[in-house]
């Protein structure tokens, strides 16, 4: 069987490559062991600079409460706003809280007072979320004070107490969210990039010319290029499952078979994209650049880092055509929620559609010329 010899040849070439086997091993480890610690959108450890002009019991209590919340690190107690601004400039603090003179007396006499919150919004997420947290803490504090001061017997103060319950990821651990998504990234590179670059590589060295005058059918040739990377991709994916379980204790709530099924479908569609690119490019450089161009955009629009729902309307429409989005959804749903195949019907159809579309395009765009 010719296919067997072709695949054997591919594996020999991969093994002999001074660079590729290492990449195939190191890359998943890096992505699985390092990236989840880096890619973290939780906001913690916000540097807070407090300017307390009041120096009263009440302002002291407030500062204490903020300090013990766990979100803030009180970096400095400045004497003036200008001084506090300087610590923001030098990146020591992120947020300034200014308590005015007469904070306590206003509170006690008039029943209301004001504080100033100024946030450094260079990092929008940190600034926005930080000032939100701070406002919440101050609100809580004011409720406490009110309760203490108007202890009207028999009259309960009507308060709606909100107790959030985070389903499927109770501790809001970002790693639980990012680890399954990282596996998608890995398959994208291993099964989408590598075979495409490999085919273009044969074009570049001219070896495809020698193959084209043999009776080897183009289809066999391409399949022989894809299969080794599919095998590698699945081995690496399984390795990722093990790392996720051992290192992070993240095991899919749903069935692993579902993940494999969708991974297969995804790999099929993404290597289709790779083949289309390889058909249109003559050099590795071209192919590499085009693949990067699309992959970076697809990753940014996949919902991996920012939820698709947060995107503007037009961008949300664009993501309909993003195979990465569907596979990341599947990974999240299976890993966190334990969804079965039936619940993932729409994703299945979408991925199947991509697989058919890109592979048909790949076949049609292949011309007889080398």
């Amino acid at each position, binding site marked *: 069987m010719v296919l067997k010899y072709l695949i054997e*040849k591919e594996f020999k070439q991969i093994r002999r490559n001074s660079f590729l086997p290492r990449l195939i091993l190191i890359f998943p480890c890096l992505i699985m062991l390092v990236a989840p610690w880096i890619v973290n959108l939780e906001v913690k450890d916000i540097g807070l600079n407090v300017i307390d002009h009041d120096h009263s019991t009440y302002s002291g209590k407030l500062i204490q409460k903020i300090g013990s919340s766990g979100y803030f690190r009180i970096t400095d107690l400045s004497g003036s706003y200008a001084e506090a601004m300087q610590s923001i400039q030098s990146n020591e603090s992120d947020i300034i809280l200014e308590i005015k003179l007469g904070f306590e007396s206003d509170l006690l006499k008039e029943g209301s007072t004001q504080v100033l919150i100024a946030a450094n919004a260079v990092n929008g997420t940190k600034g926005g979320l930080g000032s939100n947290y701070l406002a919440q803490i101050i609100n809580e504090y004011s409720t406490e004070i009110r309760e203490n001061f108007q202890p009207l017997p028999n009259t309960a103060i009507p308060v709606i107490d909100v107790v959030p319950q985070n389903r499927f990821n109770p501790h809001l651990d970002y790693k639980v969210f990012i680890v399954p998504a990282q596996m998608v990234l890995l398959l994208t590179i291993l099964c989408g990039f590598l075979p495409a670059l490999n085919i273009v590589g044969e074009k570049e060295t001219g070896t495809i010319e*020698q193959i084209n005058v*043999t009776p*080897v059918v183009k289809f066999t040739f391409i399949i022989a290029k894809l299969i080794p990377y599919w095998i590698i991709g699945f081995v690496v994916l399984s390795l990722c499952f093990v790392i996720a379980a051992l290192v992070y204790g993240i095991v899919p709530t749903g069935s692993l078979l579902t993940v494999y099924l969708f991974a297969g479908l995804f790999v099929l569609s993404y290597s289709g994209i790779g083949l289309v690119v390889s058909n249109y490019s003559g050099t590795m450089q071209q192919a590499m650049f085009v693949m990067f161009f699309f992959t970076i955009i697809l990753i940014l629009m996949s919902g991996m880092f920012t939820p698709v729902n947060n995107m503007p309307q037009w961008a949300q429409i664009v993501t309909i055509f993003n195979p990465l989005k569907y596979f990341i959804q599947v990974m999240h749903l299976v890993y966190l929620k334990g969804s079965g195949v039936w619940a993932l019907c729409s994703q299945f159809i979408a991925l199947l559609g991509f697989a058919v579309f890109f592979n048909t395009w790949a076949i049609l765009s292949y011309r007889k010329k080398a």
Partner: protein
Amino acid sequence: MVTVQNITKQYGKTEALKNVSFSTGVGEIFGIIGPDGAGKTTLFRILTTLLLPDSGTAIVNGLDVVKDYKQIRNNVGYMPGRFSLYQDLTVEENLNFFAAVFNTTVKENYYLIKGIYKQIEPFKKRKAGALSGGMKQKLALSCALVHKPEVLFLDEPTTGVDPVSRKEFWEMLKDLKKQGITILVSTPYMDEAALCDHIALIQLGRIMSINTPQQIVAEYRNKLYATKSESNYRLLKQLKLRSDVASCYISGEYLHVVFKNNTAPFIENVEIHNIQPTIEDCFIQLMGVNNVDR
């Protein structure tokens, strides 16, 4: 064995081949002789089914290159001008691989490649990329032969190969010819033309002449003189100004001159004598005629 009729191929506005026709006999070495850019590689790519002609037909081994391309691929061997084997596989692996894709084994046709392969066998564990230029050519020829093709296409096999290896290579071709294999070989080296059974002189996508090398030389219409002086450059300028000189060009350490009345005049301090034309002289003459035609 190979019959080409009115093949034309254009790349955009550039005419790579223009109404090319020729045919070869069975078991002969047919040389396509022409300078770089003459269209040799394009012609080979059409004949090996890698490229579609714009018009015209080509029959290889009784099969049409457009319609029956799949069968043609089973029984022709092609050695592209650029080394196109897997550089990261060893000599042995390359040979086994190409045998396998043709559904055969090295053992089966070993007798055919034995003479060539023996010379590189000591290096069979070496990666193809680490071979010398001459050895690469031998390996490429072995790989092109391993499935026992009936027609062998060699695109500039001796370009960039040292003179000794070139000579060896042509000896190997002669041996293959004895096995009944038809060989089409292209080369920019005119001295190799004499080693072919028939040659086609090609220039700018047109075939200027097809014949045996001997006949092409015999058809040279003028008397050719070789001349030499202390300064060939000054002599060349001097000759070009003379009204009785038809053409004059440098050939090695001599200048080759054709006079309009086919007799050499006396020039002081200049050695001048009548010589037999070579293929190169014929080529230059034909080129001149073609330029006048256009």
